[in-house]
């Protein structure tokens, strides 16, 4: 019950931002040159004016902007995301089709970045200013500075073109008609490069944060207390430093879910993954307003959900939060 209340509170607090986003995007896209029917005409390869006019009526584009905005919001209140002009399906269906790839990619990248970032950060902090630290920190900086799409392209050149170890793109080899474990393995193989590509910058960030947090925590009084107790350094780090140093890392996750979706636009484009990021890009190009707004809505929900999970984690890790709230 308390959990539910907390979730509801988070949601309520995010509503104004969500509304701002939806209305802002709606109005912004009205200024774009061309509408979804123009995009459709281009896709169809032409057609006469009558078809265009009929399509505009069919998609409700003949109504005034405030009327359409009002309609959209009204439908949204009933949790109806509307109908996608370009895909010819309800937006909810279109998004649900694309969600798994993105979620999988984001979860994999985030876990990878978080886990390896934490480990590398700890190693660097334990050997601060010695060669392992220098090496890890330099790597972190280089990872941070690498444009993800470029890394993806180069990874394709190396691992797909020359070594031919991993597929260059896609989300699974449908032609093979795999099922069960083989299919999972196949998807995993397809996700290796995209995951690495997307995770790269987050790996750099989380290793940096982890290292800094470790160093920060290492200077705190209770660590000195722990040492004064005669604990081994390993135990000091494992029992006292690590958990405290994880707190900023967890905050980081919440902050990065939003940007990660943006990053997946590029990565999904490089690896031709059927995900939400590419859908977003396509819906912008195709002026598919309903789909774009739907994605904004879903991504906002994702961010809210991620922050909620972060809150939960934080409360579990930090007793001060749970008793204070």
């Amino acid at each position: 019950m308390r959990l539910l209340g907390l979730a509801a509170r988070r949601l309520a607090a995010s509503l104004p931002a969500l509304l701002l986003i939806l209305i802002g995007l709606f109005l912004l896209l009205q200024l774009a040159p061309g509408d979804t029917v123009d995009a459709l005409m281009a896709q169809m390869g032409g057609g006469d004016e009558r078809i265009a006019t009929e399509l505009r009526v069919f998609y409700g584009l003949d109504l005034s902007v405030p009327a359409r905005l009002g309609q959209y919001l009204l439908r949204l209140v009933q949790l109806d995301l509307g109908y996608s002009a370009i895909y010819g399906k309800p937006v909810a269906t279109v998004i649900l089709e694309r969600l798994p790839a993105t979620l999988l990619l984001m979860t994999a990248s985030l876990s990878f970045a978080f886990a390896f970032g934490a480990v590398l950060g700890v190693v660097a902090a334990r050997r601060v200013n010695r060669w392992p630290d220098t090496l890890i920190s330099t790597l972190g900086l280089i990872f941070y500075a690498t444009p993800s799409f470029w890394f993806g392209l180069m990874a394709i050149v190396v691992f797909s073109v020359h070594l031919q170890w991993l597929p260059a793109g896609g989300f699974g080899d449908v032609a093979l008609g795999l099922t069960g474990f083989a299919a999972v393995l196949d998807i995993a193989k397809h996700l290796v490069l995209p995951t690495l590509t997307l995770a790269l910058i987050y790996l750099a960030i989380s290793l940096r944060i982890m290292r800094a947090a470790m160093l920060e925590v290492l200077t705190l009084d209770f660590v000195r207390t722990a040492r004064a107790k005669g604990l081994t350094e390993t135990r000091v780090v494992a029992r006292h430093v690590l958990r405290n140093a994880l707190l900023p890392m967890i905050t980081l996750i919440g902050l990065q879910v939003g940007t990660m979706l943006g990053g997946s636009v590029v990565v999904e484009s490089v690896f031709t993954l059927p995900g939400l990021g590419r859908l977003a890009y396509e819906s912008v190009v195709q002026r598919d307003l309903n789909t774009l707004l739907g994605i904004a809505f879903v991504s906002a929900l994702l961010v809210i959900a991620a922050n909620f999970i972060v809150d939960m984690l934080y409360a579990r890790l930090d007793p001060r939060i749970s008793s204070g709230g």
Partner: protein
Amino acid sequence: MQFLRAYARNPAALIGAALVLAVLAMGLLAPLLYPGDPLSLAGRPLQWPGANPRFPLGTDPSGRDIAAQLFHGARVSLLIGFSATAIAVVIGIGIGALAGFYGGIVDTLLMRVTEAFQTLPNFLLLLVLVAVFGSDIKTVTIAIGIVAWPPVARLTRAEFLSLRTRDFVQACRLQGLSDAHLILREVLPNALPPVIVYASVVMAIAILLESALAFLQLSDPNVSSWGNLIGLGRNVLRAEWYVSAIPGIAILLTILGVSLVGQGLNDALNPRLAGR
């Protein structure tokens, strides 16, 4: 002076400064070394680096000299980086300062707007802005500035929140000084160092965002940006991968330089944390 000395003690920061200066020099030397339009047809397309002594870095799919584009691209990347950062920092500081200094309803309103911007993935917003307002270099720069300000605002706000109740600010209140004085003379100078350090992050992000846009062929095609070159190279990636690889390394080194400078600034500004 003391700051400079602290900065110069840090070898990584010096490497960073050297990288940034090198890119700057590339940009400044571009018109001397490669006079004329870097986008003009220079020779047969897709000549490998070294294959033709005239083109040490080869030619791209449109028959343009990659070296010339690389040098001219340095100007574009830095220009976009600096301008977009300036825009983001000005917006961010403005909003963050007002929200942090006044708190209450002002803070709530401004932070809701900031949240909205942060909830929407910034690259997505950038795509929309470019689709709506076109992709010439000015629009792209402004659009990047518009999507990059929220973290600056949050940082500034946090600094202002902690500084506005500091004793020296309170003392100034008691001296009868105006809010404008408090914000501009007392709080802002003390809030700036972390913001300046963060500006290097914004700049790195700005350069990355522009190159990602260019990679998707959504940036200004009339300037020789590194991202454009990577995007062009994508079509010939399998055989002529150098077209993408070369500008990618340039971006990497530039951002590396900017990050190192940022880190050096941070260490020099917060000596307590030096060596972290």
